[in-house]
């Protein structure tokens, strides 16, 4: 419990800057994330696509893309486990802090390395393969930069805390702060004492979330899980919308 007491003392020093960074920014980026997606879905369904470049090049993509995507899915699971599930719950089911920590570091590092490796292959491909590069918009470049910075900082923070330092228990600071945002009782003090790499990772992620709806990353939200349950062949009727009207009453077909 010494660690948390230490943070409490540091918390006194957090001021306007802390509130801006750890209260205002998260809410703004969350709002932009949600409303941005709603707006994009209404305004730009046609642009809502993966914009796959597999037609141009497939050798590098076949390695890089699954590596990156499966890596980032595991990273996502790890973040859900680390940020959303309180420490007390894992304690309650008998997972000690040490076990959790070892598990998180091992799985997280493997997933992180896969993600970064995949991303490096994909960025290399995007830059060096002519057709792929010429199909890259400025929006894509900004997105790649922001994504790479966020992932890089995240991996750096983990490595720095666990390999260089003696480990850092973010589940006593970052996770409660993250959850506090959703209780609508945000506590910026929890974040002020966090190592700077973790802080930067969180900030860059918040910025990435704010940009998310305006990039090709939107394809993540329409991951086709419905495919597992729908019938194979989809039948659809011509819509009855503009330019047509329902038959008048009294003309229903006699069966």
């Amino acid at each position: 419990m010494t660690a948390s007491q230490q943070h409490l003392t540091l918390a006194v020093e957090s001021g306007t800057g802390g509130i801006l960074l750890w209260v205002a920014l998260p809410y703004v980026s969350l709002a932009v994330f949600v409303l941005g997606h709603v707006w994009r879905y209404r305004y730009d369904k046609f642009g809502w696509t993966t914009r796959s470049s597999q037609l141009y090049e497939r050798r590098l993509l076949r390695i890089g893309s699954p590596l990156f995507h499966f890596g980032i899915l595991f990273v996502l699971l790890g973040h859900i486990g680390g940020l959303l599930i309180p420490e007390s719950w894992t304690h309650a089911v008998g997972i000690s802090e040490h076990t959790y920590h070892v598990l998180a570091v091992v799985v997280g590092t493997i997933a992180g390395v896969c993600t970064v490796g995949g991303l490096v292959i994909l960025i290399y491909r995007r830059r060096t393969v002519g057709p792929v590069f010429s199909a890259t918009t400025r929006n894509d470049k900004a997105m790649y930069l922001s994504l790479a910075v966020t992932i890089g900082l995240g991996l750096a923070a983990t490595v720095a805390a666990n390999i260089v330092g003696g480990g850092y228990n973010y589940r006593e600071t970052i996770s409660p702060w993250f959850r506090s945002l959703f209780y609508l009782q945000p506590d910026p003090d929890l974040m002020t004492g966090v190592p700077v790499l973790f802080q930067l990772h969180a900030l860059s992620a918040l910025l990435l979330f704010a940009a998310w709806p305006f990039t090709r990353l939107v394809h993540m939200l329409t991951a086709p899980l419905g495919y597992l349950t729908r019938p194979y062949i989809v039948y659809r009727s011509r819509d009855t919308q503009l330019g047509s009207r329902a038959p008048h009453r009294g003309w229903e077909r006699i069966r």
Partner: protein
Amino acid sequence: MRVMAQMAMVMNLDKCIGCHTCSVTCKQAWTNRTGVEYVWFNNVETRPGQGYPRRYEDQERWRGGWELNKKGRLALKAGGRFKKLITIFANPVLPSLDDYYEPWTYDYETLTNAPLQEHTPVARPKSLITGKDMKISWSANWDDDLGGSSEHGEKDVLLNQVSEKIKLEFEQTFMFYLPRICEHCLNPSCAASCPSGAIYKREEDGIVLVDQDKCRGWRMCVTGCPYKKVYFNHRTGKAEKCTFCFPRVEVGLPTVCSETCVGRLRYIGLVLYDADKVLEAASTPDDKDLYEAQRGVFLDPDDPQVIAEAEKADIPRDWIEAAQRSPIHALINTFKVALPLHPEYRTMPMVWYIPPLSPVVDAVRDTGRDAEDHGNLFAAVDALRIPVDYLAQLFTAGDPAPVDAVLRRLAAMRAYMRDINLGREPDASIPESVGMGEEQMYDMYRLLALAKYDERYVIPAAHAEQAHSLEELATECSLDYEGGPGMGGSGPFGETSGGAAPIAVENFHALRDRQTSDTPAAPTGKETRVNLLNWDGKGSPPGLFPPGNGDGPGSPDSGGEVEPRP
């Protein structure tokens, strides 16, 4: 019984001269946009040959269509739902651009900009993919008319399935053209492969379409379609396919490819089928029974019970009548001369073909015998195993019997009609020898040789009370070329992002622009446009006079016609 109507096509291959008019007009109408330069909703292949994309029929490689799994149940050849989702990040069997071709344009500007020089300037080919100079090495019809040659014919997938002897003799035998569009299958494997559920089959007329707003570019449909007739637009990241020209068909017009067909070899009409039987027919154990199984799915539109069921299924009366007059129904079921393309893919294709008799006729003629005599022709059909076996690979999963029967029927018609044309006594034994009556034979001749526009295309218009809004098309519009009226420029998220402008709004703007422009073409200075035709003489429209000071006659705030009424 669950009656559904299907818009279908039959092509008479004997009449195809390989002029590619269908391909060109289709391309002009539908795929003259960036991102779909390599896309041919309609293409004409030389057979034997590789096809487009190259060797698309090699399903061991491309994994298209359906197959029966170990339990004898129908399954996607490229893998089921779970496998699709696992491989979604990099589709392992997607054809690359090399399998189609790298589209290009020419650097025409050099021709006008080049300084005076000794040699004529040259317009170099520029890749439309990279924008760089390129060497043209392949294109959509690179092996046009060369299909039978040893260089290209050898690569034909079907030739490798017929015997070695045939392969050696082959180049001396025959060649014909095969126009292909999307098959609008009864059991479409592209739709089944689409993770987003964006590809759908229309309930009313069975046309298979891609909802451009729901497509997310997962590209599984390209793999799923064994005919490789779903294409990936590499600029918009969406799948596109032949639409059976549904905006035309809905108002009773034939598709662009049919309308412009020089040989008049295409027929369009309705087929009624029993939707409950499709799965069972597609699961027929033996590939060679699939042709008959699919014919078993079709319903007789003259059967009173079928009519009653069709009315219960809300099929309008005039559609049922159109199904009765349908040339497709006649060619497939009455005369039995049309065959499906590759029934062994188990998608229940709905564009059928009348196999060409001309290779047989040509062979007989080359021997110096009478090529119109049914005896000679029948003997030749029996003797010329090579074209028959090849056609069987195309149309009946390798079973020569149905192809034999069709060719004999065509040969009988040829011999029987010659007697009539020459004023001789018609020989009733000829139709009889192929199991047809004299009148039926003449009807078939009429449909194949004389049929006019309204007999070849029996297309009932869509009903307004159930119409898809013709105003707001779900798919692409041919006005959507770059800078065209359908585009409105690139949105902030790359090529053609942003909602498609509703056509009513487009019309409004186009009309207003035209009414308010000074010149018919390329109006400039939009703010100074004036429309004198709409000016009723009251006040002065803005732009009529040069801007004066204050509230002079040229003031934009003055009265007159400000907003023209379209």
